[in-house]
């Protein structure tokens, strides 16, 4: 009997590791690949350096007036700098900016525990954020109570309005979406068809026609003399529109809950609503958080459409600034600024939802 001595591990040949090996297998593995790589590199060479020059190297950053930018060949960020408050807060009175800051600061503080693994009362905190936080925020924005001066909704604007619209849209569409999703899975034919028609209707029409209806036509449908805030109406329009999408997301979650869960709840004697509230929905909603985040991203981008009905969200307020005779001709800077703000928000949220999805897909032991 021979005792086996293992062959020593040898280092791999030089041409398959390191930079050479990497580029050989990742860039130049076949003639076609080589051609593609060279073409791509050329493309990058064409686009990236001029872009970096314009955005950073040749850009003007300091100054307060148009004259500061006269000499620069790059972007004029002074324009954005001068207007930044308006871009963030709209026409909100300057003395009251702290209220907006407080509202969003509060959200961040409240949301942090949700990301802490060991935190126990996530569900309760989430419920608080969904139910009470909007009320607090509304108080802070609108004022009129607690010694806060009243600020009309027409003065809300900028990024804060964009966030408010998207936030309200998603929070308000959640309950309606749940009801619709349950309705669509209902065995009652009429309930089911009503829900299907409702969902398909909202999913089939463009948001701008919905916004147009809610912003200028709604009073036509209401009894004489009833009227309410334009922003509120836009929000209702958005929420209805969004609820259809939300319903489909939630339906996916409900479908993913095994039938056994329904049966077990039933066998224990829980009524329909109790088994929904205690057993099915908590599981289904958790499953669809990534889907909800994705809906939120879509909504966040779609809020730009409110500029068509004369609300000043981030994009609208930047566009409005282009008309300032003192700053004519800096629209590219404005668009780039708007694009980067939107991009940062959407990209980080989509990354978050992707990581969540991964987490839910793998260790679902909780």
């Amino acid at each position, binding site marked *: 009997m021979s005792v086996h001595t293992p062959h020593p591990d040898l280092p791999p040949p030089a041409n398959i590791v390191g930079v050479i090996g990497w580029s050989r297998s990742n860039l130049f*593995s076949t003639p076609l690949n080589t051609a593609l790589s060279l073409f791509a590199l050329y493309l990058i060479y064409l686009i990236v350096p001029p872009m970096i020059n314009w955005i950073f190297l040749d850009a003007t950053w300091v100054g307060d007036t148009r004259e500061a930018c006269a000499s620069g060949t790059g972007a004029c960020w002074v324009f954005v700098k001068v207007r930044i408050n308006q871009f963030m807060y709209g026409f909100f009175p300057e003395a009251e900016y702290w209220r907006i800051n407080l509202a969003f600061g509060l959200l961040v503080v409240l949301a942090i525990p949700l990301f802490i693994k060991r935190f126990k009362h996530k569900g309760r905190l989430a419920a608080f954020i969904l139910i009470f936080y909007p009320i607090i925020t509304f108080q802070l924005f609108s004022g009129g109570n607690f010694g806060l001066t009243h600020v009309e909704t027409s003065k809300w604007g900028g990024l804060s309005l964009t966030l408010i619209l998207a936030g309200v849209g998603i929070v308000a569409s959640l309950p309606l979406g749940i009801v619709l999703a349950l309705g669509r899975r209902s065995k009652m034919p009429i309930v089911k068809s009503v829900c299907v028609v409702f969902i398909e209707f909202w999913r089939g029409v463009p948001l701008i026609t919905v916004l147009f209806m809610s912003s200028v*036509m709604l009073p*036509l*449908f209401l009894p004489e003399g009833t009227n309410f805030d334009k922003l509120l109406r836009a929000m209702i329009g958005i929420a209805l529109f969004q609820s259809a999408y939300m319903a489909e997301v939630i339906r996916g979650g409900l479908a993913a809950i095994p039938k056994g869960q329904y049966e077990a709840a039933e066998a224990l004697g829980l009524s329909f609503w109790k088994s929904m509230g205690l057993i099915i929905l908590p599981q289904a909603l958790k499953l669809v958080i990534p889907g909800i985040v994705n809906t939120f991203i879509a909504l966040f981008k779609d809020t730009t459409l409110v500029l068509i009905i004369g609300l000043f969200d981030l994009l609208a307020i930047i566009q409005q600034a282009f008309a300032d005779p003192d700053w004519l001709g800096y629209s590219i800077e404005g668009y780039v600024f708007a694009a980067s703000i939107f991009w940062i928000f*959407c990209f980080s949220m*989509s990354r978050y939802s992707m990581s969540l999805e991964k987490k839910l897909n793998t260790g679902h032991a909780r």
Partner: protein
Amino acid sequence: MADEQRAVSLPAKPALWRRPAVRSIFFQILLVVGIGYFGYTIFQNTLNNLEQRGISTGFGFLDQEAGFGILMTLVPFDETYTYGRTFLVGLLNTLLVAGLGIFFATLIGFMMGVARLSSNWIISRLATVYIEVFRNIPLLLQILFWYFAVLRPLPGPRQSLILNDTFYLSNRGLYMPSPVYEQGFWLVMLALGVAIVASIFIARWAHKRQEATGQQFHTVLTVIGLVIGLPLLAFLVMGMPLSWDFPVLQRFNMAGGMVIIPELAALLVALSIYTGAFIAEAVRSGILAVSHGQTEAAHALGLRPGSTLRLVIIPQALRVIIPQLTSQYLNLTKNSSLATAIGYPDLVAVFAGTTLNQTGQAVEVIAMTMAVYLAISLSISMFMNWYNKRIQLVER
């Protein structure tokens, strides 16, 4: 003992409200009544309000003369046509941009989706950057950007970039010759028709022969030859019954020819690039959903990578891709309504915009517009579902 049991346990028929079936019917009746009442109230309110404000109702306005011009029309139109015609013009423009958008977005999406999975590091990275950048920026912003980005650098019409004296590119659009059919052109059309029919037969025959003998036939080349050659022959025989209407530079603009206006171009670019990014993700996830074992098995059988993709991977990936593709097509169609922001005369801009404003018939116009979008959406999803079913059938 059993009888005792019966006596004890047999209850009278349960009260109506305790029977689920009854409850459910009752609840549904309630729902119908509620919705009916709601609808009725809205309807009444609207009628009341309209009457009180002296606004006429009905669709009579569709027959009135419109009296305004439209930038781009696919059917004959001038200001003497009716409002009903503006509806058609807007609808066709919407369908045009949606159709082309779907085509290009699918093309870009599939290319980028495959590129993202490429073994070439740079290509896959570029595709990733493309997807992440364009997916996460609002479409409206992109449309505005492309519009002004396209307009800015282009020269005025008199400084047009001219190619071959036939194509003129300026900030008024891309002008090119349009065909003028003269007498005898019918034969060319006939030849084209014959060629197409023949091609179909040849394709069938080639397929059959390949099944039978294994010989492959260059169907594509033959068909191309046929479809080009036959009409060309007819064209020459009839003494070239076609002339071109070349665009000519006039005092201000180009006149004659065909034009792709910058509004259409910008909208199309924005829609295709934006939606393409989403489709690319769908394609990628679809391809990834097909297990690697399938590729290996195909390779082990000696199939080349191209055939593997075509015969094994894509047919399976489509099952995952199609539903997502459907919703992207729907989104694209609805998003084409953002045309109104840059003045492309689509349905929303022309009909729900100018026509609504000139006639004041908001309820009728908006109802018609929504109905049209709803119909388009439903047709797209019906078609896609039908297609999805068909390929599902192949699978199971």
